[in-house]
Structure formats: structure tokens, C-alpha cells
């Protein structure tokens, strides 16, 4: 049942004591870096977890501004790997790892996958991108640590993905939720019957915020259980929080990170149960500890005990990244609200994009949906009905009436990596 029983079931009091010790250790290591030497110049240790709230925040901007080595807290000879964001605008964020960090991360990923039910006799197909992106390589190491037969296919080439799934009887898959939906089109085109021809039982879905409706859709299409995975490259990558078999919130591994929720405007710490921005302090990182890192992910901490028995608290499904917020005629909207609504209407199809443009000094929200053989009923009347329903339900969810456009199957842009769904075409020079 447990990968590390003593840690996963650790008594709350003991867990908190461990966290305090670890934070003090992390402060000490962090202060070897250029950034924290200044930032923490007058802090050496804290005497209780209540003092964490007095420590300064670290932001993504700080990481960018300290490019390339400002956060490195150990000698280069101890560093064995770096991961980095693509950095198309400005400096990328770079994250360093020692051998201990990599090993620890592998163990944590293995714990996540074990928690969701994966075992060493499973066949694991990893469709996440390898390379600088942490999604693929992070779980690759974890899967090998767990002892699964690991197939490092990487992203894209849907036919080959299905070919591997059929021939090697893949039972566990790691996949972007948007790609899981898109891959299913190929499953259908190849006339593959998921029950007869495939042996899938578990999917790990993550790296993109997604709705419960989307999870359900993936579970239905493939006849599997899909588990929500949370992580961020600044901390290490996937594996920071993960769903257990109860599928109600993600256990955030409190021996690895110390979580807080803050109000994103006042920056005050909020009690468990309140929604806000997740802030994480690393507890075991050697090469690059982070103190109170603002993740920009919105969620809440669930402190009620979980039926699985693990004592580590849970976080709710990430509802949004603060960066993703769209402001349309003064109304705040998150893309996940739109996704949730679309996924809850079975005839609405799976592939869509959101466009925002300006018309007569007003913002217009346009949602383009592909009509494919799955959702096409064959009459204009059905399409018009669907159009009205989408308009009404979206208006209810987001408070703005969108324009719904139906487009040909396959006409919307696709990407191998994270799905790009929002296209803001407003003139930003004004």
C-alpha cells in the first residue's frame, strides 16, 4: 500500500518537527548562494513553523534576475544537472541538481506513482517531453526506481504511441491531459478498441491545469483511472503532490516541501481551506533550496484526514495559474472555467481554442470548437442547439457571453507540448 510507510503515515507532530529542522537546514544551505546571502542576511534560523511567515518570498522574477548562478548553493563540482525554462522572453529560470537531489526526486516520483497504484510489474509509457522540460525525465527516473518496465517514447507521433501501447501492453501512461484527448482521435482512426486491444489501467495527467470534467472524460474514453499530478520545475518537477486512490485532492509531500497558501494581493498567509496562491519552501534540496517560493498556482490546502491514511495534507486541484487569468471587459476569467464547461457538454467535442480580440473598443471572447465525427449529429439544427447551449452555459460560468464558432476537424493548431489554447489578439500597444 505504501512506498515509504514510515514517512507517509508519519505522526503530524513528528512531521512538523521534521519540517522545522529541515527549514533551518535549508536556510543554512541557501545562504551559500549569492541571492540568499543578501536576502537572508539577518536570518540564521527560525524557532517555530509559525515564524515561516516572516521569511521573505522568492519569486520567478528573482530566479530570472539571478541568472545564471545566483541561486546555486553548492560548488559546481557537486552539481550534476540543470533544467531550464525555454526563456523565449528574457532570461530563463534555471534549476540545478546534485546527485542527492536527483535521487531524492526519483524516489518522490516513485512514491507518487506507487500511491496511485502503479507496481513493478506495470509497463510504463512516458509520452511527456524529455530534455530541459522536467515532465518526462522526472517520472522516467521515478518509474525506473519503482521498477516498472519504462518506455521513453516522448511526445507526439500518435500512431507510434498506440503501436507501443498495443504491442507492449502498456498499463500505465504519463500524458498531458490535452494530448490524451487528441490521441484518442488516432485511437479511433486506427479502429483500436480500448477494452479489447489495450491494457491501460492508469494514467498520470499533469503539467497543465485541468478540470475534474476533463479527468472524467479521459477516464471514460480510455476506461482507466486518471490521477492528477502536480509539480513545478523550480522545486524539481513532477512529484511534488499527487493523488492517492481516493482521487480527492493531491497529497503534498510535506517531508519534501512546506506548503502555505497566501492571499495573492495582501500576501497574508491564509488558513487551511481558503483558496489562494500556493507558496512552497523546499525541505531537502541541496543544490538550490528555495524559501517561500511563490508558485502562482491557485489552490487550497485540505487538512481533513484522507481515507487512505496518509498524514500529509492535500491540496485541491489547481484551479488556475495567476498568469493565466484573462481580463475581458473588466471581468476576470480563467481558461479552466471554459474548459470545465465545454467538457461537461458531451456533444461539444474536445478540441477548442480561446481567442480574445477587440471590436469597437470592446473585448470579444471567441471560442472555436472543432466539429469532428464524434460530436457531429448531422443536422444544422443540432449544431445551432449546441451553439446556444454553449453560449448560455459559458455565460453562466464566466459572466461574459462568448461568440461560439464551429470549425473543421483538424483545423485548430496543435502542439506536441503543453496545449496552447488562449490567443490574445488584442492590441497591447495601447
Amino acid at each position, binding site marked *: 500500500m505504501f512506498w515509504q510507510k514510515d514517512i507517509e503515515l508519519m505522526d503530524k507532530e513528528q512531521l512538523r518537527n521534521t519540517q522545522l529542522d529541515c527549514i533551518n537546514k535549508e536556510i543554512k544551505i541557501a545562504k551559500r548562494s549569492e541571492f540568499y546571502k543578501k536576502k537572508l542576511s539577518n536570518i540564521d534560523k527560525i524557532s517555530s513553523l509559525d515564524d515561516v511567515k516572516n521569511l521573505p518570498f522568492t519569486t520567478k522574477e528573482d530566479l530570472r534576475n539571478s541568472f545564471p548562478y545566483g541561486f546555486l548553493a553548492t560548488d559546481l563540482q557537486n552539481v550534476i544537472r540543470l533544467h531550464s525554462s525555454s526563456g523565449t522572453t528574457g532570461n530563463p529560470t534555471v534549476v540545478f541538481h546534485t546527485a542527492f537531489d536527483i535521487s531524492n526526486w526519483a524516489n518522490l516520483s516513485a512514491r507518487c506513482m506507487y500511491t496511485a497504484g502503479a507496481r513493478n510489474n506495470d509497463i510504463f509509457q512516458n509520452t511527456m517531453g524529455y530534455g530541459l522540460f522536467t515532465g518526462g525525465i522526472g517520472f522516467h527516473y521515478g518509474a525506473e526506481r519503482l521498477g516498472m518496465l519504462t518506455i521513453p517514447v516522448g511526445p507526439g507521433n500518435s500512431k507510434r504511441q498506440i503501436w507501443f501501447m498495443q504491442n507492449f501492453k502498456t498499463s500505465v501512461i504519463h500524458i498531458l491531459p490535452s494530448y490524451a484527448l487528441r490521441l484518442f482521435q488516432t485511437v479511433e482512426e486506427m479502429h483500436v478498441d480500448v477494452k479489447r486491444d489495450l491494457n491501460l489501467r492508469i494514467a498520470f495527467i499533469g503539467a497543465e491545469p485541468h478540470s475534474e470534467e476533463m479527468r472524467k472524460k479521459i477516464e471514460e474514453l480510455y476506461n482507466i483511472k486518471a490521477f492528477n499530478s502536480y509539480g513545478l520545475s523550480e522545486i524539481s518537477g513532477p512529484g511534488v503532490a499527487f493523488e492517492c486512490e481516493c482521487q480527492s485532492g493531491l497529497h503534498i509531500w510535506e517531508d519534501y516541501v512546506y506548503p502555505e497558501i497566501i492571499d495573492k494581493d495582501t500576501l497574508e498567509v491564509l488558513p487551511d481551506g481558503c483558496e489562494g496562491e500556493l507558496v512552497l519552501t523546499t525541505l531537502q534540496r541541496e543544490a538550490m533550496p528555495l524559501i517561500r517560493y511563490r508558485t502562482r498556482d491557485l489552490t487550497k490546502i485540505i487538512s481533513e484526514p484522507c481515507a487512505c491514511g496518509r498524514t500529509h495534507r492535500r491540496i485541491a486541484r489547481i484551479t488556475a495559474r495567476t498568469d493565466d487569468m484573462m481580463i475581458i471587459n473588466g471581468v476576470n476569467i480563467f481558461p479552466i472555467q471554459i474548459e470545465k464547461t465545454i467538457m461537461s457538454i458531451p456533444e461539444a467535442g474536445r478540441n477548442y481554442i480561446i481567442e480574445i480580440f477587440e471590436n469597437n473598443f470592446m473585448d470579444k471572447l471567441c471560442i472555436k470548437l472543432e466539429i469532428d465525427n464524434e460530436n*457531429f449529429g*448531422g*443536422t*444544422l439544427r443540432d*449544431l445551432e442547439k449546441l451553439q446556444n447551449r454553449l453560449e448560455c452555459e459559458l455565460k453562466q460560468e464566466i459572466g461574459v457571453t462568448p461568440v461560439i464558432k*464551429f470549425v473543421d476537424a483538424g483545423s485548430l493548431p496543435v502542439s506536441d507540448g503543453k496545449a496552447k489554447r488562449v490567443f490574445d489578439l488584442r492590441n497591447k500597444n495601447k
Partner: protein
Amino acid sequence: MAYHLSVFLENNPGKLERITKILSDNSINLRAMSLASSGEFGVMKLLVDNPEKAFEVLKQNKLTVIKRQITAVVVDNVPGSFNRLLNKLSQNNINIEDCYGFLLSDGKTAAIIMEIDNTPNASQLLSDIGFDVLTAEKIYKY
């Protein structure tokens, strides 16, 4: 059981031509069609001599297409005959989802193609009340 094809279309230039070209490249004869449009998108119904093949080739060309069952009757090419048909249909509570017609080669009669959703045994009913219901073979080749 006869059917025609229903194709989803975004309304943009060249779209119809793309479809007719696929049919022509595959030697499929387009016997009749109708187009219902709602400004930015529409639905095209295609009656062809080989619906099975047409369905496959359109799908291969990534078009969104499904098959829909049709019922076809022959009416005389004289004033009032279509009205007589509609009259009988409404008397029997048969609802037409979509319909179009074309003149048959004798010039004296026309085929009326109907999508009937609410009455599974519409063909039988129509032939019982005296209409000449066309078989699939005849709809495709007549």
C-alpha cells in the same frame, strides 16, 4: 435501407469545391444535394451513387461526415403533388427533418428525399398509404 451523407462545413471559399473534387477524383456521381447554412458554418447533404465509398473517401480526407438514413418517394411532376405528399405526412404525424427533390430522367416524375427522424417504419407507412417508395438501389442509380 438507404442513406445520404451529411457533411459539416465551415463557410469559406473553396470548401464546396474541395468536396466535389474528392467525389469526382473517386468517380463518385453526385445525384443531388442540399445545403443548410447558418452564416459561418453549414451542413451539406449529399446523395451519391456509392455512399459507402463516398463516406470512406471523405473521411480519409479529414472531413467531418456521417451517414443519415433517408426515405425517398416518387411523385408526379405536376402541380400539387408535393403538397399531397406533405399533407399525408402530417396526417400520419410524420415529421420531416430535412428534404430535397430532383427530377427523374423520364421528366415526368421527381424523387423526394426525406430525413424522417420520429418514425422508424416511415417507408412501410408511406407505401401502405399508396406512395411509390424507392428502394436504395433505385435511389442511387435510377
